[in-house]
């Protein structure tokens, strides 16, 4: 077989990496190269340098070191029994590609993952080498996200955290039963053990930096994880509960959802159909309700029908429709928490309302100026010049018609 050149490898190893949803480059320590040494900067807010027609942002060079893998997880394009072409980057190739892309302002940095070859330690060592070369040999100051191999030696993970901004370990599936069925060689206990290890290392480092400002930073952008939605039978209620416990237990920055998408050479165990993109979107909305809107898990679950979030309306509207007695909310007097429950009022709008109403009483026109649209809000709010008719049947107004399935 002829040696693959870097471009051919890139085609294979980017293709193999696209099922990882995360491309975030936000929330890390601030760095720059104003001193004229090194290359790159991170300023808090990440930048999406391009968008693919799948609507996903391209912020990082997201690739695998190799797509060969000793595991045989059904949902994964890179599983041992898959027929895809295999390739492997050298450490130097990844370093060169990252720097060349970065200098042209194509990317914020690197997101490196890998199939597991030889042993978890060997694989992790290769990942760490890439990050270390970028930081130490090339003084690279952009963003680095390393996928951590759950079974790797904790010492290697420790080293990874010194070079990477973010580390992540995928829980893969929302329930342990799903993991047993679809990723028989992975072990939920080991995955959670590794996440606990990461949390401890991150917390210890924060503590150390309180006492010694010179202590090196460990994964300043924290850890994240991802789970696949729609490959097993887990309900939305179960998924929301799982992510809430992940946030709590492991101090995660983000839990990503990846709608299971058909892959080339798929295993027969899987539901081969268009990915459940709307479901994925609703789960992200539910995630936001938990993190920014003060919803509890049971409250989000109350928005579901038998465990499934409605697809035709967002979860906040669904919750509101089931709690008509909580509305209308007076925008001039209600506490912030109540305003956050109003469908169509985002965090920014609520903050603007709270500040503005200290100065004067607000009417519908004022509300319209700080929100994206008043029609959706009208039935749920009371304003200086507005009170809704509470006999309104809301659902037909808010729900959009959905095209039926062909049979």
């Amino acid at each position, binding site marked *: 077989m002829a040696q693959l050149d870097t471009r051919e490898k890139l085609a294979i190893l980017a293709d193999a990496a696209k099922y990882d949803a995360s491309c975030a480059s936000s929330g890390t320590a601030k760095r720059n190269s104003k001193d004229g040494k090194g290359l790159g900067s991170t300023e808090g807010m990440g930048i999406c340098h391009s968008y693919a027609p799948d609507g996903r942002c391209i912020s990082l060079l997201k690739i695998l070191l190799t797509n060969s893998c000793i595991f045989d997880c059904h949902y994964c394009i890179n599983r041992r029994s898959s027929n895809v072409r*295999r390739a492997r980057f050298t450490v130097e190739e990844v370093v060169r590609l990252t720097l060349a892309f970065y200098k042209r302002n194509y990317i914020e940095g690197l997101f490196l993952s890998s199939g597991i070859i030889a042993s978890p330690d060997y694989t992790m060592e290769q990942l760490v080498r890439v990050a270390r070369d970028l930081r130490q040999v090339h003084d690279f100051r952009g963003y680095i996200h390393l996928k951590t191999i759950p079974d790797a030696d904790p010492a290697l993970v420790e080293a990874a955290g010194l070079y990477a901004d973010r580390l992540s370990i995928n829980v893969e599936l929302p329930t342990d039963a799903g993991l047993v069925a679809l990723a028989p060689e992975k072990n939920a206990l080991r995955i959670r053990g590794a996440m606990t290890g990461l949390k401890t290392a991150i917390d210890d480092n924060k503590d150390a930096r309180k006492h010694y400002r010179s202590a090196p930073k460990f994964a300043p952008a924290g850890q994240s994880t991802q789970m696949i939605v729609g490959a097993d039978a887990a309900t939305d209620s179960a998924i929301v509960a799982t992510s809430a416990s992940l946030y709590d237990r492991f101090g995660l920055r983000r839990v990503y959802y990846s709608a299971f998408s058909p892959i080339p050479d798929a295993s027969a165990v899987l539901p081969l159909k268009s990915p459940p993109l709307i479901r994925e979107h609703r789960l992200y909305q539910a995630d936001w309700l938990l993190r920014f809107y003060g919803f509890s898990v049971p409250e989000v679950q109350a928005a579901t029908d038998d465990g499934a979030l409605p697809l035709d309306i967002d979860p906040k509207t669904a919750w509101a429709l089931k709690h008509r007695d909580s509305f209308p909310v007076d925008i001039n007097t209600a506490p912030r928490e109540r305003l956050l429950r109003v469908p169509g009022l985002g965090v920014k709008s609520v903050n603007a309302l709270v500040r503005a109403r200290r100065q004067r009483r607000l009417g519908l026109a004022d509300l319209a100026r700080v929100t994206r649209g008043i029609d959706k809000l009208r039935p749920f709010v009371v304003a200086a010049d507005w009170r809704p008719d509470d006999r309104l049947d809301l659902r037909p107004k808010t729900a959009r018609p959905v095209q039926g399935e062909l049979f």
Partner: protein
Amino acid sequence: MTVVTLAAPDDFDGFRAAVRGLVGTPPAAVTWQVAGDDAGLFGDAAPAGDAPPLRVPKAFPDLARRVICHRDPERFALLHQALAGLQARPKLLDDAADPLVRRLDMLDKAVRRDVHKMRAYVRFREVPDAEGEHYAAWFEPAHFIVRLNAGFFVRRFASMRFSILTPDLCLHWDGIGAEFTPGASKADAPDGDPLEATWKTYYASIFNPARLKIASMQGHMPKKYWKNLPEAELIPDLIAGAGERTRAMIAAGGADTSAPVAEAPAVAGPKSLAALKAEALGCQRCPLWAPATQTVFGEGPADALVMLVGEQPGDQEDLAGRPFVGPAGQLLDAALAEAGIDRTRAYVTNAVKHFKFEPRGKRRIHAKPELPEIDACRWWLDAERAALKPRIVVALGATAARALTGRAVTIGRERGRAIAQPDGSELWITAHPSFLLRLPDRAAAAAERMRFVADLAAVAARVTAIAQGA
């Protein structure tokens, strides 16, 4: 009527100096213009001088610094109005629902977005010059943001020499200081960079055709930016091909390639090679599957006359998933070419289909397969033979010979001649190319290589005879 002429469209300092002198003048009585705009307005020039600063809330200077970069000609007047309003109502800015505040917020938002998009969509192209690496980009911002945004690019790329050219203003960084020059045209910027082909490969490969969301892409990356983004020219084709690629994936899926194969197939007659390969990928007939990357099955045309059988995949074959692609494969390719055998016309496989190795540090050292492993894998070799029905089978090395004959074979005694097989085919036995690679003595290696090529040449002669006879 008072006319104020600012030095540049984003001249914040000029604006601040001017409004300090305009205290008491109603904003409606002031006309703002930028030097160079041929507005041709006549009126009283604003009073020059060092008027004292005005008291404003903390947030206002930053807001004004950004709003002044907007292309809206009313921006100066709106800021002046807000300033007058703030003197009467110091908390005016907190009232986001106020129409004037709302208007300024919208201008601010547009400028922030433009600043962000410039950081995202500037594409440097390398234009090496006498001093080494130099990068240049062409960008068309919606607003007058080059000066506002210069700091970001300097903080990020201070160790590079670069220029960002725009129609309004150009930024040049020489590694020490920033310089601004008047606007340029696209023709002044470089028109390509060899690395863009690689970037486009990445863009096309990271796209998932099964989740097309065009509106979402365009919301974040409006079409007006596309003309200066090298990757954007791929978008129409990626969208057009997405449906077909997804349908193909769904149609091709569903073969349960991962279930272990339990027993011989129930159906009569040989299976196709493709079906065998699919089954073998999940093989767990012996313990070798566990540490190996993947099954390395045979490959070659289904009508091949010759079947070459090696020992087992090595490190590179294990990663690539194809037989004979490592050093031994390269030696084999060369020897076959010398002997006159076209590898692409032969079926190439191994007696054992998984890589057996011992980890030693970072390396995986080849380990010889044992009899139980060879016998377990014979199931696949026999199935391959039954499906292919080759006229000539070549055993490369002792392991292959053991698997093909069922007995221990001394190569030196049996090489170089055809051994008739029960199914009518011929078996030829020769050395394994790895054996040649391991010989430390150069002369011995050269002699062995000649014998190896001679064995293959004899096979080639038989192939020609069979092909002509058939």
